[in-house]
């Protein structure tokens, strides 16, 4: 939960296309002056969520509020407060850059007298001066992306929704775009979807991780690191007898478990992966316990990166479990009891239990 006033509020939002559920019971807020990163693999539901907040599509269940306006009933009012850059910049190729920006400014309700100033502001912010009079179809991918960002900034909206804003930009342009977003995020609410984890770490105050349409975690990057701190690992290479080394390491305070392997190329040297808690100085205690008795060749502590955290959450998401629940929900209790047996039988025959096959099993068992 953000401490600043919430500008974007999603309350138990779900989205279905026909019988297919894309978003499940999504709830989070984005406050004023906050940049929230939206992370998830392809098909996780990031773009659909962005489109719901932007008012492009409506939530099937739940409530989306932007700047105090309910998107279900006050869509047009809310849209004045939203700058939206979709995944593919929505540009009219036949217009030139200035005409395109003027069109968007007019529709957004920018006063006629203020339009030239507003156009200059976004043109400078997005470094579009060199192509201001060029037709849009002649622009490079990077310029198209920046023009898309410029139209989103028009009208000084309270909320900025950016779907992969740095896609297709060169490193210099990425740096500039991040600066624009960071400066805008100082007093606005920004929701930024990205695949680039370092980008989220660099410019986002909080990060939301989504997969299979469910919110898995939302916290600051450091908060997420703390949440998975049990994944801190210390790796060391030692020449020592395995059993004595195991006993010595497990006696060190902070070491919860360990795995010992022979090092490739030199079987006398053992490689040890220790799971440790997040306290500082655990590696010093380990070094002291080992180096006083044996030869310690290497010791390394691995901090959790956002990438590790992301992978941990995404991999742990119980997608198959949910699918089983969903299918099993249609069956009688007696049949549900038989499903694990059917699963084991099929696995025993080397048949992977995919969704389609699971349905066949379900039909078979129903019969």
């Amino acid at each position, binding site marked *: 939960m953000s401490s600043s006033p919430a500008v974007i509020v999603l309350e138990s939002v779900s989205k279905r296309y026909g019988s297919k559920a894309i978003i499940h019971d999504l709830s989070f807020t984005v406050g004023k002056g906050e940049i929230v990163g939206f992370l998830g693999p392809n098909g996780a539901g990031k773009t659909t969520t962005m*489109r719901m907040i*932007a*008012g*492009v*599509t*409506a939530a099937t269940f739940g409530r989306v509020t932007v700047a105090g306006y309910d998107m279900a009933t006050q*869509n*047009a*009012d809310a*849209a*004045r407060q*939203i700058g*939206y850059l*979709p995944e*593919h910049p*929505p*540009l*009219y*190729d036949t217009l030139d850059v200035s005409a395109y920006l003027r069109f*968007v400014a007019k*529709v*957004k*309700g920018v006063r006629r007298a203020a339009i030239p100033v507003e156009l200059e502001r976004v043109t400078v912010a997005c470094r579009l001066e060199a192509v201001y009079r060029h037709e849009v179809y002649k622009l490079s991918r990077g310029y198209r992306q920046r023009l898309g960002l410029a*139209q989103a900034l028009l009208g000084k909206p309270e909320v900025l929704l950016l779907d992969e804003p740095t896609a297709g930009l060169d490193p210099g342009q990425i740096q500039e775009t991040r600066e624009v977003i960071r400066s805008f995020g100082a007093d606005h609410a920004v929701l930024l979807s990205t695949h680039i984890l370092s980008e989220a770490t660099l410019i986002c105050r909080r990060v939301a991780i989504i997969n299979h349409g469910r919110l898995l975690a939302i916290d600051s990057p450091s908060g997420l690191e703390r949440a998975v701190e049990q994944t801190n690992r210390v790796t060391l290479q030692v020449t020592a007898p395995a059993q004595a080394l195991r006993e010595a390491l497990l006696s060190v305070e902070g070491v919860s478990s360990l795995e010992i392997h022979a090092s490739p190329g030199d079987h006398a040297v053992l490689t040890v992966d220790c799971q440790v808690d997040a306290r500082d100085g655990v590696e010093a205690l380990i070094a002291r316990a080992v180096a006083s008795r044996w030869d310690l060749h290497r010791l390394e502590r691995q901090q959790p990166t956002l990438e590790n955290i992301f992978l941990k959450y995404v991999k742990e998401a119980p997608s198959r479990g949910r699918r089983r629940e969903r299918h099993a929900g249609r069956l009688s209790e007696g049949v549900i009891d038989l499903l694990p047996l059917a699963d084991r039988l099929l696995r025993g025959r080397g048949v992977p239990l995919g969704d389609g096959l699971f349905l066949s099993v379900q039909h078979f068992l129903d019969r």
Partner: protein
Amino acid sequence: MFLLGTGYFFLYNIFLTGDATMAETFQNMGVLLLTLIPVVSMRLFSAEYSARTMELLLALPLTPWQIVLGKYFGAVTMLLLMTVGTLIDLVPLYLFGTPETTTVLSGYVGFVLLGMACLAVGQFFSALTQNQIVAALITASVLLGFWFVGHLQNFQTSYVLRSLFGYLSFALHFADFIRGLVRTEAVTFYLVVGAIALTLNASYLQWRR
């Protein structure tokens, strides 16, 4: 293209009949319109879908009705420009003959009303698909159906069906205008067809959202 076609038919009709009248030319203009309207209307929404700019329109502070009417009036402006272009044909007509001004005027009123109804229908079908060719083909089929449905009257013995096919015919209503009759029934018909198509269009956008 439209102006060239209209000019050709105007000259052909004048020299063939020797009458200082626009009646035959209006008839040809109506058929030309049916073939050209799908080409004009097919882009209205289909191009927005394929260029992914529909996302922008839906995210801007616009209601579906504003989007629909904005596009419709843009297309109607084009229709009016096409219509104004045909006024050049009246110069020799008035120089070398004495046409009935009220008949010419009613013909133009009918032509614009017919065009407005056709555009609304074409715009609706354009909103249903992102393929412009599909939109144009469906629109052309439906408009030609409405144009020729009056011919089915000849095969009906039932009074109700004869009346229905007559009422639904774009061509029969347009023939009234060409003859100089501005009938409330015909005006209402074209306006209602346009209103229904635009309402379906706005409702479809709302439903998509």
